């Protein structure tokens, strides 16, 4: 199944950036994800494109995380700090997101930023759709609580 590379490239890049917190690495992983997607046996599967892309990207991010941990690169952490400092707008929301766990932040990204369907996210995290909805609802409630208002902005 052919995909909209312009749209999916940004979404996969965001997903990878959230995981690795490094621009160049995230972009490398994004490109590697699409190349591996082309070579995958399920390339033509109509209903598994998004799931396949996010699975490949997640595995590559995990591999990168392990590699970084082994090399004990501290530069990336410096880079994270730099990223945070670069963000000006939505400072309160950013602080609220930072208070969430990694998994919760990933769910919010997938569901509301990348707009991945619930069933695909549920399969990626190996949970039911109902459990996923309850979990997202709880995360949104926590964000609202951190922000002290009903809306995120």
């Amino acid at each position, binding site marked *: 199944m*052919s*995909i909209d*590379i*312009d749209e999916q*490239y*940004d979404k996969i*890049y*965001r997903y990878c*950036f*959230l995981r690795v917190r490094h*621009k160049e690495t*995230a*972009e490398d992983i*994004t*490109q590697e994800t*699409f*190349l591996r997607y*082309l070579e995958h046996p399920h*390339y*033509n599967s109509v209903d598994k494109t998004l799931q396949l892309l996010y699975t490949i990207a997640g595995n590559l991010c995990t591999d990168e995380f392990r590699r970084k941990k082994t090399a004990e690169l501290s530069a990336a952490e410096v880079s994270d700090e730099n*990223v*945070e400092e*670069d*963000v000006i*707008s*939505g400072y309160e*929301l*950013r602080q*609220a*997101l930072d208070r969430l766990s990694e998994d919760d*932040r990933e769910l*919010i*990204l997938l569901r*509301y*930023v990348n*707009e991945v369907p619930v069933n695909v996210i549920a399969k990626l995290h190996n949970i039911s759709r109902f459990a996923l909805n309850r979990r997202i609802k709880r995360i*949104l409630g926590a964000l609202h609580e951190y922000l002290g208002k009903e*809306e*995120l*902005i």
Partner: protein
Amino acid sequence: MTEREKNALAEAFGFEEPDRKKEFADEFRKLDTGRNSINIFPAAVRFAASAAMLAAVTGTVLMIPKHKHNISTSDIPPVTAAEAAPDDDTAASTRTEPASDSLSTTAAAMTAISTTATTSTSTAKTTSSAVTALGTAKAPAVRDSSDRSPVTSAAVETTVISSTTAVTVSTAAAPVVSEDNDQKKTEKSADTLSGHDMTVSPDNIIQVREKVISEDELLLSDFQADLSPYTGGFTVPVQQPSSSNVNTMLPVMYKNSSIVALANLDEIVYTSIDGAAYTAENITVEKVLKGSLKENDRITVFFRGGYLPAEEYIANNRLRYRSGADEYSVIVPGECRGSQIQGRKYIFFLSDSCYPLPEGSFTATYQGDSSVFENTDGTYTAVGDSNMTFTEQQAENGF
């Protein structure tokens, strides 16, 4: 969540814009173009696999035998009068039903030379019973037919016997048989065949020749003399129990027998196993006194002794071959002394046979004919030993 909130979330994550997106997107499109078509190979494989599976299942189902022989014989086609009666002359003999009370066969029948036919008047329905002598061509024919196709044995047996009735069939004493009687006979025939056919076929069936000679005569003669036909039957004496032992013999025989049953002697054939002569009798059980058989079950009983072709006997005993031997049959003594008559009813004391007899067959518990009893005026007497007798009351009480 509103679009505005989503944009705020995206900004709050603080993603940096990718630098190499445009170049990679162009390259990806080129790579993706060649793969854009839907690959139908998996679908074709699935379709082919499904078709193959369907064909395999269909083939398996078709290979399963549709009908196995039901030994309960509930589906035996009824024997009609038309099948049983080949022509008008033998219309009275619609069914060859051995009538034990009226049959008379002498020891001469054992020589297989003559054929005897008598008329049965023991029942209200007069039936001509044809008894074909033992050892003629008829015996193996009937034997083969009944063994190989037990389902249709009724029709086969009747037809064969009718076709070989080169004997006197008395129609004078036979009144016209009505359709009602025919129907009753047919039903009776079906009832008779409702048992299990457990008979076994000997590997070879020996035809008894017109010239019969005993072992002693064979040793003494050179076949040059004009021997008269042998009519003595199996005259070799068998050791008889003393009268004092007779009373104790029957309970022991009963105890040692796996089957004790009143049965009709349907057929006698002669065979040889490993060079030894045997007599095989097919019997139909009519009443079970002991054992697991049921009424109308058909079994085969083997007795030692019978007939052998003279040349085979000479070869087996390493005697000097004599010219003209192939015209003679040799009576080999054994347990069967030729006193049993086809068509009569006897009480058999039987045991399971063992090697070299065919599996599933039976043998006499004690000295052949001494285990076979015939009813004479309410008293059963051993065919091979007149000293051994018992009454019907004893039989009912289990000796």
